[in-house]
């Protein structure tokens, strides 16, 4: 049984999955098509309803 999991997509969901797995002690390979993580969320100006910025 391998020790690692693969996460495809590095948006908020992918990063969250990867962190949860990694924090539980597993090896994670996080594959993102674009040049960096963050996905759509990184392009959003403010998020409802807290109006926080996404940076």
């Amino acid at each position, binding site marked *: *049984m*391998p*020790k*690692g*999991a*693969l*996460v*495809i*997509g*590095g*948006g*908020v*969901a*992918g*990063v*969250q*999955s*990867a*962190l*949860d*797995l*990694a*924090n*539980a*002690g*597993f*090896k*994670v*390979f*996080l*594959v*993102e*098509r*674009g*040049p*960096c*993580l*963050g*996905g*759509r*969320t*990184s*392009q*959003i*100006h*403010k*998020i*409802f*309803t*807290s*109006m*926080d910025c996404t*940076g």
Partner: protein
Amino acid sequence: MDVGRHPNIEIFANSEVVGVEGEAPDLKVTVKRKSTFVDWDKCTGCGECPTVCPVQVKDEFQLDLSKREAVYRQYPQAVPNKFLIDKKGSPPCRYACPAEVNAQGYIALILQGKYKEALELERRDNPFPSVCGRVCTHPCESDCKRKDVDEPLAIAQLKRFISDQEQELALPSPELNKEKVAIAGAGPAGLSAAYFLARRGYCPTVFEATDHPGGLLYWAIPRFRLPETALQRDLDYIKSWGVEIKTGTVLGKDFTIKDLFTQDYKAIFLGLGAAKEKSMGIEGEDLKGVVLCVEFLNKAVRDSSTPVGKRVAVVGGGNSAIDAVRTALRLGAEEAFIVYRRSRQEMPANAEEIVEAEKEGIEIHYLTNPTKIFGKDGKVTGMECIKMKLGEPDSSGRRRPIPIEGSEFTIDLDMVIMAVGQAADVSFLTKEENFELTRWGTFAVDPDTLQTNIPGIFAGGDAVTGPATIIEAIAAGKEAAESMDRFIRGVDLKENREKRDVRVKDEDIDIPEDIQTEKRTEMPLLDLEKAKKSFEEVAQGFSDDQAKKEAARCLSCGGCAECLECIKACEPNAIVHDMVDEFIDLDVGSIVVTTGIDYLNPKEASEYGYKRFRNIYTSFEIERFMSEDGPSGGDLPLNKELKEPLRFAFIQCVGSRNMRHDINYCSRICCMNTIKDSLVLKEHYPDANIVVFYIDIRAFGKGFEEFFNRSLEKGVKYIKGKPSKVFEDDQGNLIIHYEDEQGHSSQMTFDAVCLASALIPSKGSKELADLLGVEIDEDGFFKNAEPAIRPLESTKKGVLVCGCATGPKDITDSIAEASGAAVKAACFLEGHELKIEKKEIEQVDVSGPPRVGVFVCHCGPNISRVVDVKGVVEYAKTLPGVVFAEDHIFACSETSQHQIQKRIAEHKLNRVVVAACTPKTHEMSFQDSLTAVGLNPYLFDIANIRNQCSWVHQKEPVKATEKAKELVNMSVARVRELRPLFVKELPVNRDVAIIGAGITGLRCGMDLLLRGFKVKIIEKKEASGGLVRHLSSIYPSFRSGKDIIDKLIKEFTSTGGELLTSAELIDVTGYVGSFQVKVKLGGKETDFTVGAIVLATGSELYNPGERFGFGRFPNIITNMELEQKILSGDIKNVKSVAFFQCVGSRGDNGNPGCSRYCCQAAIKEAIYLRERGIDVAILNRGVRVYSKGAEQMYRKARELGVLFLPYEGEPEITGTDKAEAVTIPSPDIDADITIPVDLIVLSVGMVPAADSARLSELFKVPRGPDKFFLERHSKFGPVETTVEGVFLCGCCQFPQDIGDSISQASAVASKVAALLSHDKITLAPITSTVIEEYCRGCGRCAEVCEFRAIELIEKEKGVFVAQVNEALCKGCGTCVAACPTGAIDLKHFMSEQIEAQLEALFG
């Protein structure tokens, strides 16, 4: 810890999964890492490369609304924070060039005025820029993409321009230390071979038979086209590389090939040209006055007073023919003309040469072929010609000329110049060596390597191809140089030789939609009359302005121009232009798919005029526009002047819920997003008139209804109705046509419109699904194993799907699902703890006086460009306690960190200050470096001299340096006072208690059991299963609630879960890792310890009391009672049912939020009733269906004839013994509607459970204004609470539907598993500490502590002091500020430490 630094996470950015084999847990995955052209191990993200990049391409991060450089990172905070280069392929110009000269590159550099660099770039591929800029046949221009817009760029003339700009010849400093090579023939092929070999370090000698190098460039191209000085410039440059040219040395006469080998030449290139001229072979060619073209041109070159005839015919259509005829004119011919057998179209001469010749008065007789030359007294007097016509294309692709019989005619003339071709003749060499020749008498060579049949002897140029172009000869020389290098090094000659760059795909070439046509810049020419009489150069060359104007027309087809400027700018040498894709094989146990969504391009909804009219945006574009780092700097890019307050419209559901676009579903986030955008706009334009055209406002999440109300309060107007079209008037106003609520067609005028376009499956989803072997649903999203019940599983074992990959959803839901998917993925992985071996490190003794080391970072040029870094170092050395200081180019780099570690040992440092960037970026990595050499990581400080000095004071370097010194001074003062701190570890109990045995608690418990944890569920009721147990069925699978619950309970208990029903929770004490839980069970109290607690206490249904006629008539029931009736089949004698929605929701009777489940539940129930012939009306306040399959269910209900009627307030109910009719006002018909009813169903909302107040107190978990439990963060921490170790999921947080509750349940399991996977919990040592003698026990600290980490304890009778529970303290410092006596201090930020900083600054 963040994702970029997590030791367990390996990030493959710019990568794709290209292969998947096997079954979970034995999956073999292949990942393709696409080349970034930047070595990410070396890239420091300093940001220098884009400052020199000349190419601007569309910025997809800004949704193509602005441009960026070809070398880029998406945004400054990107993770990984690395640059990459955007290459689309070889640009058409470069691809068309035989020598692959980088035209796009030098054109980009011209635009920047970097002429020297442009020439340098050109010369990497071509040693003859001055020549080719004048006389090349420029195939680059033929394929230039600009021709699709207007005309191709004047590429050759730009090349000439850069070579003309060279005032002093660039002098390379060659290191020729390799073997000797010999080249025969100093034409373009031979000289190119020599040049490219010299560039590789070989010592080339060129043997030339004539007395001048250059071949036909020198001997046959007239000076008015290629002045001698222009050629000489290139020759001088070639020589400057150390190429030795021996003229007057004839092969076969003065030396032999054998001689060369014996003289230690390691390889030979034969660039012998095609010197033999051909004639037509017609009668009269031997007459005096009939000459061959090259011979004629050659004479004219030697002597510009060479005699010429009065009437001169030149036979042929190539550049030489044109050269000859123009030369004849200049030598004094009264009339010179061309005879050519095909038409203008087939003529091989350059078009501009033909035009120039025509301007000079030269006539061209097309479709004319000589048949005979007449003479008198042995001298030519005339020529008989025949008219031709064009037939079928021949092998050259040109149409074959066919003589027209009987069309012969005669021309009087006294000179004929035959320009009908040349041929190679190398047969003389075969006497010496056994060369294989072709039937045309040229060398037979390997087409890839140019090697002849004799190893080590290579040939190229016209001697191989027959007469061809200069650029082909240069290409041959270049190719031969590669072969000869390989030959000498003993490397395979052929390997990877077929490589040619891949041409950029036409569809990838970005031609802006709004491109302005701009004609090609015309070349200034010498005055015509002057030109005709002299050999002065005709083309005068571009001026600076003309060159830049022409260069600006380039479309940058290839993306990166490979101008190589970034290489020079990159200090860490990270740029690798020839990087190739990499393929990596991975063994994994499971896969989580989180591929997200794309947006529908609203061009598809053409009625709204997107991209046709100005000021129409998509909602996603609004995000970028309103961002300060966006394409318009944080404001709308309105291109009109506002005379009155902004009029702005949002159109909802563009594409969504729309069969026309095949988008059957609700995109779920657009309503909230529009509400948010309306509030953002109101901040920018407080007077704006904002109108939202909507179908239903779906504000169903926690706090959403309140958010919606906020926009209403701000004056945003909501109009129910879908606009039919938008058009633009001549003032640039946008007019929206729509149908108002009364059904009248209306119109309204706006300045700008935002289209809330649908969310669609991410591009490539289908391909990825095929690769993974999982199914896609009818909407194109990843399909769930079972909707609602198994929302995180795909149709294949071990492949989990979550977030928007399965359908649109907001961040909160995506984050919860992502965590949930993680716990499921973990079940396929071995073990649950990676053993990281800890080495015992000898600790540095820090008890002595401070010995501070200061390390000042240049951050590449980021700091040093402004701040005098060396000055800061010298200053630091003078500070008290500093024993060592030095500077680093990049202090964060691995090399520098090692260096710092070395310095710690060498100088016995016990404190470290780094003056660099923000501590947010690298503080942890420096601390790790300290830890690794045994120095306590808290004896460290960062002075942020980049953000706070060099960035904000760019224009004031002196002051910036002074400030940097002050910051270093303060840091040193602080670090001297710092004390070592040590992390504390607490043991962890690995058991979990879940409060509540509804579907959420059970699911969470089950997931934890599967991960190997012991779970107790505490349920206060006798039966478990919560509300779901009582549901007749759940949509969209229509399984009964009881079945689902029973199955789950069985699974839970048989896997070892403990289910304690009728259990009363009495008390909870302790903290994360060790909570003591006291429960009363069967009259007895029991205690147990757990490491984590999950609140899954659900919610209760609103009790309508006597409202809505409830209790007044027996046939008014709640929806839950209807479920029971459906289950028991007790719906008899009912013909007509009315549902009242939002009873106890959305502000009704004080309950602020939407209850989220009731619209979908009512529709499910309505369908059940309707299918049994019962009339159903659903009285609603907007239909909020958003879950997977729900929109389709809503459509089905309408098709079945379920009536949906809007209503507000309590409807009038009439009847005597029972409710018989319901009356509501109808705005549509401006009258009341009365519906006869046999049954009224109240869709009651969800309210917080009665004991939630007690539980909140018990667990110290706060509740929000709506009295539901409050999560840690509404988006990024939806299942955590502010109390570490206590989690929440399902309806105790806010009403959810079943699918969302289940996802949250799994998410909590994931969080708990991560927490309890470790033997110990480490506590950060930065906590508050109480100085007891100052504390007077007032308790203010305890009041302000949101983590409830402080309590007052009775030290002795009546004397209270504050005590900090370090397990709960987060080190926020709020208590320090609140303490009136200064009795609390925060470790690492102690008063004396801060005072020392202030003291240092103010003295």
